[in-house]
């Protein structure tokens, strides 16, 4: 019961973000719980004038010096003195504080530092930057007695060539009084704990939690959306029958029926087909489409231990770096986009093999067309991205999104590249208007001989490619997981107003959608009610923020959830846009396709590179290749 009370008090405290009303509310709740006959209230800490970013430091053996920022969050100037590693802590010798001290204002501009008797004065809102390094050699070998993780565990002896864990604390004085400082930890993570389990979890979350459900839904959505665009009804008959209840759900269960049908259909192999390659081709088409998702970031970083606190960007960056958390991206590869090109071109093998191994003239025609098309448009894709690379200076998608957070989204800085990339990427998925490899009315396509789940794999990989194109466009040009104008930062919304805007906007949108769904058809009543209810909850959130000023300090786990939802929403809308394009535009002829690729997209993308390079050289003098 006491724990519950304490948790509740903390919960209300961080929900209110330390605001006056929130504090009152917390005190009230605390009193209520105390009145129930538990322990006396714990002594509250004095208000802290200086916040540290990150709030906790974690070092690995190969960590380079880490930047620590002290922010003056009070209303009056403070003097910060004697920043050092606390000599009373266990392993203080292992860490060292750098000599440089930089004072910057809220806009990250350097200001001359004022030193009074060894202490540095910080005006309100100003930040003091310093660096902290680690001497990992100190932690090598037996050394002092290792610290057990828990009291009941017996500390194991450390081998001479292994690292042991270490602990210290960075402390400083504020106006002569000791600040509680930042805890510092040193540890050598196990390979499984650092790489294997997080990667596995992220793969499962991404593939089973997002890609496969969305791809299956897209098979239904394509049919339904096209029907609605063409004044037809589309699939609406499949239903989930749960006893007396029959859930039609606008025909969404059709994708389940499709899956069952494909699994149980005859698995046909043409008599003269090359059996091994015929079997391998769908795998060659399916696997690259999934594997290429490894570089897509769907959030910034996740901190394992501090999920219910509001964390600063420095904390999240540290977690995204793998220290105390994990980046919300399966693989953080420095060559990011090159990996995308490499893996995407493997998918060409799938189509080429499928056509050749089928022993069918239409199939091989389709596969030849597919190969020619994919090779032509990969050139254009590669060159359109170069413009974005010049502006943001990185190939790594996670870094690309962060760079967009720092300046503008890619669609603002690179509008032509956005159109060119989107066009070329749709061509890469081999869907209308670029579906000459498939060309239903002429040759049916490279998978003409495939049936059952083998065909299903081709079909599904097509939709996975659609999702990937959307994810890539969102990452490169639409700011990935971020909201426009920097509305949502790592610690929460940039101001309570932004939180109110976001929640009121989302709530109203969902409410309208729910009511419309309710009105449209009888089958939509349940769904509409749920959507409208979620919308009303959002509106409650907005009004809560209006009265308490909540929104600037949001618990980390909620921020992570918001990132994922925002990213997923962007991807979903872009998928719907691709379906709209696919069912609006007629198919290109083969010569038109080639001339669009080689005479249209390619020269335009090269021109885009030249113009961007000149503009970057003229307008962004700091961003030289050396940096």
């Amino acid at each position: 019961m006491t724990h519950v009370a304490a948790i509740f008090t903390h919960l209300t405290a961080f929900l209110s973000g330390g605001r006056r009303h929130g504090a009152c509310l917390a005190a009230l709740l605390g009193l209520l719980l105390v009145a129930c006959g538990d322990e006396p209230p714990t002594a509250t800490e004095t208000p802290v004038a200086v916040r540290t970013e990150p709030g906790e430091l974690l070092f690995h053996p190969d960590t380079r010096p880490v930047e620590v920022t002290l922010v003056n969050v009070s209303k009056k100037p403070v003097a910060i003195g004697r920043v050092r590693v606390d000599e009373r802590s266990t392993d203080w010798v292992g860490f060292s504080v750098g000599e440089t001290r930089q004072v910057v204002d809220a806009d990250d501009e350097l200001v001359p530092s004022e030193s009074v008797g060894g202490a540095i004065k910080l005006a309100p809102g100003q930040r003091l930057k310093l660096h902290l390094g680690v001497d990992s050699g100190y932690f090598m070998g037996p050394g002092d007695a290792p610290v057990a993780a828990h009291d009941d565990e017996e500390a194991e002896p450390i081998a001479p060539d292994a690292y042991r864990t270490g602990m210290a604390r960075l402390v400083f004085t504020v106006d002569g009084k000791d600040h509680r400082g930042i805890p510092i930890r040193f540890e050598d993570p196990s390979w499984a704990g650092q790489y294997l389990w997080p990667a596995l979890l992220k793969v499962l979350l991404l593939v089973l939690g997002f890609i496969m459900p969305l791809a299956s839904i897209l098979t239904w959505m394509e049919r339904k959306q096209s029907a609605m665009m063409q004044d037809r009804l589309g699939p609406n008959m499949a239903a989930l029958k749960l006893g007396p209840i029959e859930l039609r759900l606008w025909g969404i269960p059709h994708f389940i029926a499709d899956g069952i049908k494909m699994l149980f259909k005859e698995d046909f192999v043409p008599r003269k087909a090359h059996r091994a390659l015929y079997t391998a081709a769908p795998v060659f088409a399916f696997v690259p489409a999934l594997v290429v998702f490894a570089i897509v970031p769907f959030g910034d970083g996740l901190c394992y231990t501090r999920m219910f606190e509001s964390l600063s960007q420095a904390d999240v960056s540290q977690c995204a770096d793998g220290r105390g958390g994990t980046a919300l991206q399966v693989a953080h590869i420095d060559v990011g986009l090159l990996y995308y090109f490499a893996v995407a071109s493997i998918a060409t093998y799938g189509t080429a093999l499928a056509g050749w191994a089928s022993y069918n003239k239409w199939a091989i025609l389709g596969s030849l067309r597919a190969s020619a098309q994919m090779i032509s448009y990969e050139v254009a894709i590669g060159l359109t991205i170069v413009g974005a690379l010049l502006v943001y200076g990185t190939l790594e998608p996670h870094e690309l999104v962060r760079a967009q957070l720092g300046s503008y989204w890619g669609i603002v800085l690179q509008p032509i590249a956005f159109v060119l990339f989107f066009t070329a990427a749709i061509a890469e998925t081999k869907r209308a208007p670029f579906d000459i490899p498939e060309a239903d009315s002429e040759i049916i396509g490279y998978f003409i001989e495939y049936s059952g789940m083998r065909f299903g794999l081709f079909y599904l990989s097509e939709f996975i490619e659609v999702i990937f194109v959307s994810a890539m466009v969102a990452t490169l040009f639409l700011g990935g997981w971020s909201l426009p104008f920097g509305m949502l930062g790592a610690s929460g919304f940039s101001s309570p107003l932004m939180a109110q805007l976001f929640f009121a906007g989302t709530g109203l949108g969902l409410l309208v959608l729910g009511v419309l769904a309710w009105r449209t058809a009888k089958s939509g009543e349940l769904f509409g009610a749920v959507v409208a209810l979620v919308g009303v909850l959002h509106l409650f959130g907005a009004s809560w923020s209006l009265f308490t000023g909540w929104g600037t300090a949001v618990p980390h786990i909620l921020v992570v959830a918001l990132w994922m939802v925002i990213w997923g929403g962007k991807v979903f809308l872009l998928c719907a846009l691709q379906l709209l394009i696919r069912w609006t535009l007629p198919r290109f002829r083969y010569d038109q396709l080639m001339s669009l690729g080689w005479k249209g997209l390619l020269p335009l993308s090269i021109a885009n590179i030249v113009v961007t390079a000149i503009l970057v050289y003229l307008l962004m003098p700091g961003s030289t290749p050396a940096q």
Partner: protein
Amino acid sequence: MTISVKKVSLQRTARDQIFLPAILEGLLTTARHFFKNTFTPGHGDVQTIRWGEPGVTGKDYYPERFRGVHRLMYREDGSVRCVACMCCSTVCPARCIYIQAEDRHDDSEKAPQSFVIDELKCVVCGFCVEACPCDAIRMDTREHMPPTETREEAVLGKIDLMKRGGPSVAVQGGLGASYREQAPKADPRFGHDPR
């Protein structure tokens, strides 16, 4: 007077060449249809017959002259009207009607011992109905041939065909005077009398 030739310029304008304005127009058109049809009660412009929806049977939407699955009509005593003249099986372009004749014992006419229609072969042309001299075979059921598990089930015999049948008002052996008057009335919902 000379013949004037209208020359059509095939030159593309700059607007045509960059594609994008036309593409955006097209996207807007389809998007407008999508939102109207999705969010209007009753699905906006959608004209599709709503098969299988509660309260809707396909029969309601069929005109009177729709050719459905065949049926064989009765005489007043409940026996089949067919006299096994082979007109229908002769005229059938798909050759899907097989008749074996036998004696009819009450008078001198023939009767079919077996009357088999392979509905899978049938092309639903209606020639058999036109050819029949005694109003024995009809296609006015307004029913599609229902799907079957096996091919054999789609081959209908005399018993199956007579299940859908009814007494005919026509005079046996020739056209009765009242046939046209007593035929089913046109569906008032179609606004015009197909006759």
